[in-house]
């Protein structure tokens, strides 16, 4: 009995320690999720809320722009995550064992765009790409080329957005990879060298498996980040031309704040939440299994 009381007391101390954070988690994460779920079943009009069941979901599935947004989001997630993981692994594996000053320089160079706000980056790109008075179109005109409008062309707008987002985010992944690779025990590389392994062999059979948790982590955080891609769309393309670059988050924003369809926007939020959960759970499982 005394032992039980002691256990409870010790547990209580622990719970009290995590209580402030848990309270914030409940207020700022759990409550909005529950409220979002509830609102997705209502039609909201200023001060009145009417229960409409799954009407908001039905409206979503009857809107071709929603499917366009889902498709574009999937393309962004796949392309940006693949590019980020592949490029950052390539840069990391190329420089991690070089001179410390050189590694710092590379890390710093790639990290600068991460520190610059996405809003600023988008505005700079917007200035460069504006078809009427942007720098790129001006140079194209000066070189007697035809009008360049990468953001107004359905086939180029997605690659441009993918490149801008990738260029802004890749620094974070490079930092993580270099840190993970520096942490790989040196004796493994020495043993491989003695056995006459090539650089490619070392990367494939030593680095790749040993930084797998980092790869999974980078993949998860990038999937979650890209699922929420918004600023670059809002400032660079406005979802256009003709919804060619609309994403789920932009679609949600439009419904919530431009069309005042709070119920429909909440339904999009619920779908995004489920999608993120679906994509993250297997990867989190893999990460925990490894540990």
């Amino acid at each position, binding site marked *: 009995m005394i032992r039980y009381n002691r256990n409870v007391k010790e547990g209580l101390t622990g719970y009290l320690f995590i209580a402030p954070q848990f309270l914030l988690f409940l207020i700022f994460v759990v409550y909005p999720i529950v409220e979002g779920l509830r609102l997705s079943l209502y039609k909201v009009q200023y001060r009145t809320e009417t229960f409409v069941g799954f009407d908001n979901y039905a409206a979503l599935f009857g809107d071709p722009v929603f499917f366009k947004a889902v498709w574009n989001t999937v393309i962004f997630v796949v392309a940006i995550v693949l590019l980020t993981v592949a490029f950052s692994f390539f840069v990391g594996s190329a420089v991690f064992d070089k001179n410390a000053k050189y590694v710092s320089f590379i890390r710093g160079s790639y990290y600068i765009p991460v520190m610059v706000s996405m809003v600023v980056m988008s505005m700079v790109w917007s200035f460069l790409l504006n078809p009427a008075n942007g720098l790129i179109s001006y140079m194209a005109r000066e070189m007697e080329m035809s009008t360049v409008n990468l953001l107004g062309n359905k086939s180029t707008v997605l690659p441009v957005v993918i490149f801008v987002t990738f260029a802004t985010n890749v620094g974070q992944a490079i930092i993580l990879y270099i840190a993970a690779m520096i942490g790989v025990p040196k004796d493994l590389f020495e043993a491989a060298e003695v056995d006459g392994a090539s650089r490619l062999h070392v990367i494939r059979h030593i680095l790749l498996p040993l930084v797998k948790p980092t790869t999974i982590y980078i993949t998860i955080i990038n999937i979650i980040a890209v699922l929420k891609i918004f600023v670059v769309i809002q400032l660079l393309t406005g979802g256009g031309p003709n919804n060619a670059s609309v994403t789920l988050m932009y679609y949600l924003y439009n419904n919530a704040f431009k069309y*005042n369809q709070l119920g429909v926007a909440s339904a999009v939020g619920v779908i995004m939440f489920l999608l993120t959960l679906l994509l993250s759970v297997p990867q989190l499982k893999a990460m925990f299994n490894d540990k």
Partner: protein
Amino acid sequence: MLKKRAMTVLTAALALSVAAGCSGANSNSNSAGSADSAGGTSGAGKKEKVELSLWLTPQWKGVMDATEDGADYDSFFLYAADKFKKQYDKYDVKVNVQVVAGDQRDELLNVNLNGGTPPDMFFESVFAMGDYVHRGALAPLTDIVDDAARKDIAQGYWDNVTFGKDVYFYPFAHNPGTLAYNADIFRAAGLDSLVGGENEIKTWTLDEYNRILETLKTKLPKDKYPNAYPMALYALNNQGDTWNLAYLRMFGNKFFDDKNNLAVDDADGIKAAEWLKKVYDSGYSNPGAESVSSNDANAMFQNQQLGISFTNAVLYNNAKADMKAGKSPSFDMRLANIPSASGKPLAFTYVVGTALFNTGDKARMEASKDFIKFFSTDPELVKASKNSIPVRSSVASEFASQFPLFTAYDANAANMFSFTGNVAGYSELRQVLYPELQAMYTGEKTPAQAIKDYQSKGNAVLQKARESSVIKP
């Protein structure tokens, strides 16, 4: 043991303080404005404190004139609030004025409406705010409109601000929408004969207009005006879309039917869309209209990169003020009507006025109403409407000799069409047009298909909005 106990107490205190902080934030959640009865009542010899918020989109700078020292978009309302406070005996009023960008208006309002913190008042073009009447977010102002105001402001303006039986916006000024053109560019291209008078709103026939576009494209000296284009076309978002709507009426389409449904999908509507597409494809407009906003177009016009652009009275005056202050290149800027196939030009106007939000706070709503009536009727303050076009005939006649364009605008009133911005769902309808124009300019859809899709999507939006409107016809 003592240490452990101390830590436990500390953790509990931290958790409690977080909870207290949260509840404190909740109790003070209404950031838009507040009525503080703790400040005392008139019975105690002190006036009750009332804090009001007034939002506006950029209109004119300065109290009366953009040339004043420190002139800004909020100058007029700060001055009006100060004057109001000095003579107001019901409450001790403080008015917080906030200028919001036009393209952020709906986002900001929707966030604040859904969060229960709408502003008390909003000064804006009526057509952009009509949806808030239909949603039940605005309160009627009929009881503060007196006979003197009814006499001084023409019935047409009252019709514009009346929804159902009630007045929801107190009209202050109006902004006629026209075209602006660079007369210097016209002359450089040899179009002297088509340049109108300095104080004239020039009317061209459609043939003349097409000739202007072609001449500007082929004969404008490139050394003097490098990278200049004949006219502005834009479709990035809904900003400045009334001009796009006007272009779609150029061949006689009525746009709305008797039941306020879109009726743009007919031979005239399609012809107008084909005309727009031809202008774009022939290089008679700036390139990339699908990715260019009206703000971009306005900046290009001010930098002499466009021969013809869109404007309204406030934009025109602001552009003139910028030229005078050396903020933008100076050139001979003049006004023209949007031409039409029939020869009768197309013109429209935005009535600008103040709306009262239904915040549910009696004191704030009462003080707001008094403030709206004060600055909309005060003989000194209403003179600021000269910065666009006054709705009051007394002000218009007082300034007629000083602003010769007032007479031109007045004469142009015969060419006005109503773009029916008061229908339920107009704000969402505005989000339907520009994607279709983008599809048309990029060649994804033919003009006929774009018009057809605009009509069917637009009518679905209008139907849905009508069903949930609180205003019953």
